[in-house]
């Protein structure tokens, strides 16, 4: 009886894996534990061992193919055993979708993995958004995989419209802003037109041939040139299949007319060399907010090194007690608290620039930037829940809220109002290993405090004059972190921003209380 080699459970959230290499061939004898093949997922690469001794009877999936947990990869057995047709792959038990309470700026979570149907991630997304089952669709990709094109064809057949791809791609990246199209360049050359004069403040890429012709008609006295198309645009033309075929009367010996076939669909570029990942609502929001912020506020970032011995000692001393009360005491809680100290020292850091004046906020609502796990393309997400009135909370109160918000952010359970009203923001990229970044402000706030990783660094411990050599000078290895405060230079200046940082540093280095 042949033994099936299946794709194991690859971990939470991993829907599929690619076969990177087979280490055995059909007919090879293997022993239990020998590596049969290597699988690559977006998270890890893994080796699949032989579940038992035997001979590789049949390899069912080729290198480069996408496979899902539970799928049969190969059959092992006696060398002279007849190869049975593989049993239908058993899908793994799908995890229950996380509960959804309220709308948050995050797309619908991905549907449970459908191990029995092979589809590209984009195809899955489109199918899901259009509310159709992948079972209905015939895959044309490698190994019967369902591609985006398959889903779109299917939808076209049904008359339904997928929501994501109907949004046109908005222009080209900025570096191509001045790349005019060939018809535009040709028209400029034909009629000696300065494209800048036609474009004014617009990028050259926005010009149409008729813009140039209209300009030439006006400024070069070429009144015969058409200033606008006299033919319908792409939106105004009915699809080929809907159009009437001209009636052709033919003598008997002439072959009869055939209807014009709809032009054959060619694969879109995303099925060739690139993949179009439609924007999630979150990606759009992040893009819009960061871009708006970067072009609104003049950003400056100031960096401060902080000795974390006091905080770490405090945390070590109180961690268990907090845990007993159900609170995971994170460094983030200390940082929120220290940030509040900064606001006390420099209230203008907790403010908004307006044309009338600078609005100083009496209440301190601290936004907490939380990263969401990336998808298979490394596209992550960012969400900023808010700890309201952080200045009135104890360390424990802050720690509780940090625990709660971070957990619910990652499980998509935040309420919309929990994302609003922040007055200043903390971002702890130290958790992903970074020493410092230059954060972008969350509009309309004027300050965002970034915290880098805490690590031991050599520090000079000096008793005497700070700059002159002293006999007692020594190197110590101190857990340090680097704070980076990005601030809106319309409101804060270098000195005031540093006053804020000094207060934060003081609070952390001389941690007292609770």
């Amino acid at each position, binding site marked *: 009886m042949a033994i099936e080699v299946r794709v194991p459970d690859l971990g939470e959230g991993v829907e599929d894996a690619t076969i990177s290499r087979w280490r055995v061939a059909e007919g090879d004898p293997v022993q239990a534990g020998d590596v049969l093949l290597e699988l690559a997922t977006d998270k890890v690469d893994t080796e699949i061992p032989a579940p038992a001794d035997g001979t590789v009877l049949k390899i069912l999936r080729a290198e480069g193919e996408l496979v899902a947990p539970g799928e049969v990869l190969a059959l092992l057995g006696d060398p002279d055993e007849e190869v049975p047709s593989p049993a239908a792959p058993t899908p793994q038990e799908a995890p229950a979708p996380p509960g959804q309470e309220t709308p948050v700026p995050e797309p619908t979570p991905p549907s449970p993995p459908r191990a029995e149907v092979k589809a590209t991630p984009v195809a899955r997304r489109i199918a899901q958004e259009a509310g159709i089952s992948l079972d209905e669709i015939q895959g044309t990709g490698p190994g019967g995989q369902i591609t985006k094109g398959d889903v779109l064809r299917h939808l076209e057949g049904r008359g339904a419209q997928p929501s994501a791809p109907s949004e046109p791609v908005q222009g080209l990246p900025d570096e191509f802003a001045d790349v005019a199209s060939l018809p535009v360049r040709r028209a400029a050359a034909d009629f*000696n037109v*300065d494209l800048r004069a036609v474009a004014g403040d617009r990028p050259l890429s926005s010009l149409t041939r008729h813009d140039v012709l209209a300009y030439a008609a006006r400024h*070069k006295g070429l009144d015969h040139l058409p200033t606008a198309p006299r033919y319908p645009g792409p939106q105004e033309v009915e699809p080929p299949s809907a159009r009437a075929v001209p009636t052709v009367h033919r003598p008997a010996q002439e072959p009869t007319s055939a209807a014009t076939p709809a032009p054959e669909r060619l694969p879109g570029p995303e099925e060739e060399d690139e993949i179009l990942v439609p924007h999630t609502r979150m990606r759009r929001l992040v893009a819009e907010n960061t871009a708006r912020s970067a072009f609104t506020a003049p950003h400056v970032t100031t960096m401060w090194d902080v000795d974390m011995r006091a905080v770490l000692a405090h945390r070590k001393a109180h961690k268990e007690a907090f845990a007993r009360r159900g609170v995971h005491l994170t460094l983030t809680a200390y940082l929120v608290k220290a940030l509040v100290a900064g606001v006390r020292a420099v209230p203008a850091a907790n403010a908004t620039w307006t044309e009338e004046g600078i609005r100083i906020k009496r209440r301190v609502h601290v936004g907490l930037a939380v990263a969401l796990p990336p998808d298979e393309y490394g596209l992550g997400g960012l969400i900023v829940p808010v700890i309201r009135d952080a200045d009135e909370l104890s360390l424990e109160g802050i720690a509780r809220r940090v625990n709660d918000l971070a957990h619910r952010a990652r499980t998509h359970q935040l309420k919309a109002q929990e994302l609003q009203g922040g007055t200043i923001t903390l971002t702890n990229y130290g958790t992903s290993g970074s020493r410092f970044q230059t954060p972008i402000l969350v509009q309309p706030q004027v300050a965002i405090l970034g915290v880098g990783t805490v690590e031991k660094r050599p520090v000079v411990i000096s008793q005497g004059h700070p700059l002159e050599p002293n006999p007692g000078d020594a190197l110590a290895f101190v857990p340090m972190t680097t704070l980076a405060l990005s601030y809106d230079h319309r409101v804060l200046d270098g000195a005031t921003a540093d006053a804020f940082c000094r207060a934060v540093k003081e609070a952390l280095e001389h941690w007292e209380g609770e």
Partner: protein
Amino acid sequence: MSASISPQILPSEAETRLEVQPLPLDRLQQMYRTMFLIRRVEESLLQAAEEGKIGGAMHTAIGMEANAVGAAHATRPDDYVTCTYRGHHHALARGMDPGQAIAEVMGRATGFAKGKGGSMHFVDPEHGLMGANGVVAAQVPHAAGMALAAQLRGEDRVALTFFGDGALYQGVMHETFNMAAKWKLPIVFYLENNRYSEMTPIWRTSSVEALYRFPRAYGIESMQIDGNDVEVVYTAVAQAVERARAGEGPTFIEALTYRLAGHMAGDLETYRTEEEKALQRQHEPLMVLRNKLLERGARPEELEAIQAQVEEEVQAAVAFAEESPWPDIAQAYTDVFYL
């Protein structure tokens, strides 16, 4: 008879002995100034090319300055001139602004052709320079067409076309000799014989030894002169222009000269020896004129002062070019048609 295809012949050994009337001292000093300006502009351009500031092919006329300056002084600003891609000296001799010239070679918006023409396409209609040309001999019929226009309109303008020894073997050269002679066009054919067609000495490719004899087959008056003596050049061109204005048709001047720099920036110059260059340097045009000036009573300080002034002017021109903006990309599409 001089075998003018040999690089061993000095320009001073040219066949035709013209009666040269000495030019006034101030005129000669003016000529010296322009010749020195050309020399320094060319040297600055070569340096810029070595520094990577200039792309493509750039051909300098170091050692050939007297041809341009003598001819420019012998013609009127409203006469027409065409020349070869080795044409910086003709433009500067006729009065082109050195800053615009250098900017053009560097492809800047302030160049005379907005950076579209470059080193090989010098043009300055205001001073009568109607175009240098990147194709050997192509500029020759252009000058004939300008002479034809002057003739059709009954004007007394003359066209002067410069070309190198290599151009003599292009068919269009002979087509133009024939039509110019047949129609008695007011044109001067000026051969700058520097003995090299690009990287090949002309003696390797020419079946004729004395190049000025070519056009005689078409009945064109011709002479062979010292192209490194600006007074000789002036005299020869003045005579030819006079004939042309009088309706007596074309004249052909073979001016012996020598290119002291390579064919183009970056030329390895494997085709000639240092000895040959040293020989030719004995009669290079700036030195010839400088000696002449000193002989005729000019003081060395005067010449130093001229040189210092030119030095300053050239430095300013280079700075102007280097600080000039690049043309806007939209300019790539203009000037294809005149509208």
